[in-house]
């Protein structure tokens, strides 16, 4: 499957990822810090993923601050 990462935008290929929760674990990302997007839908952690899926892992942390 193809995974689109942001900040900056780039793409990686992963194999054998069965669910969103596996994807987050493989990339060591906490669910609270990202949205997982496939097409125009948001995916919950239990959502099954297919080998030909394209999913975006979009970080939600922004802003900075002094």
């Amino acid at each position, binding site marked *: 499957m193809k995974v689109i990462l*942001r900040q900056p935008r780039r793409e990686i290929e992963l194999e054998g990822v069965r669910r969103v929760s596996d994807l987050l674990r493989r990339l060591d990302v*906490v669910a609270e810090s990202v949205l997982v997007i496939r097409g125009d839908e948001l995916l919950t952690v239990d959502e099954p993923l297919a080998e030909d899926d394209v999913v975006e892992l979009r970080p939600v942390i922004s802003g*900075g*601050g002094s």
Partner: protein
Amino acid sequence: MKCRVCREKAVIQVRRHNANFCRPHFIDHVRRQVERTIADYRMIRPGDRLLLGVSGGKDSLALWDILTELGYRVDGVYLHLGIGDYSSDSLRLSQAFAAERDLHLRVVDLPEEYGFSVPEAARASRRNACSACGLSKRYILNRVAVDGGYDTLVMGHNLDDEAATLFSNVLQWNLEYLARQHPVLPASDGLAKKIKPLIRVAERETAAYAVLSGIEYEVEECPMVAGNTINRYKEWLNRLEEESPGIKAQFLKGFLDRGSKAFRDGTAPELVPCETCGSPTTGKVCAFCRLRDATAVDLRRRESA
């Protein structure tokens, strides 16, 4: 996962509320959180003129949409910070959002109107970029609100922003900042009233709200923000949240309900008009005028070198 309300397929899990939501019920949930926050803190009186600080990011655009949907008439102010493509992209997205909804967006250009950009100010002063940026935003948004006759300046700070700022202020025991951290800061001489209606909505939820509402926002991060301490605190707090859902909201709510009063008593510094621009300050010349002067000196020095 099924939606808590209708049992249809859920698109988002909100673990601290022990709830999953489908798209329409999530949007409704977020709007109700904001509506309740406004009511609980008596943020807005009928007829108030509202000015929202707009950055083109998920929080300010989601909040503009929510307030409009709740029936408020809100104008926006966008501050062009002079940070290359990032600034032009986020301006384009802010203008597109306003135009689609027939909302009024005032644009202030920092380099054109004040003679310097955020990268130049960061280079000239000993502040990091986020600090120079935050100072400029606070100063200019307040000026626009006061000069424009607005009753209230509305800011898009979310639960994560406030929890991470609180965490930082506690780590450093910054009593002055702790005294001022509140979702409603009343108007005082030269300062507009300031409110933060998103404090009960987590960052992930404002992003989800924007995506699910079809709001196009600036997804890329500001190029000046790399390694920012507050953002690192947010990541750590999210790891705690993963272990203990609700910990961020408890931390902030506990402070606002029980802790904050102790810091507010007797720590408010006296404000006097800045000798240069007249804005309220604790010193003779306000921090923004000092930043502008230092940057102007630095720019002149570089030009003649």
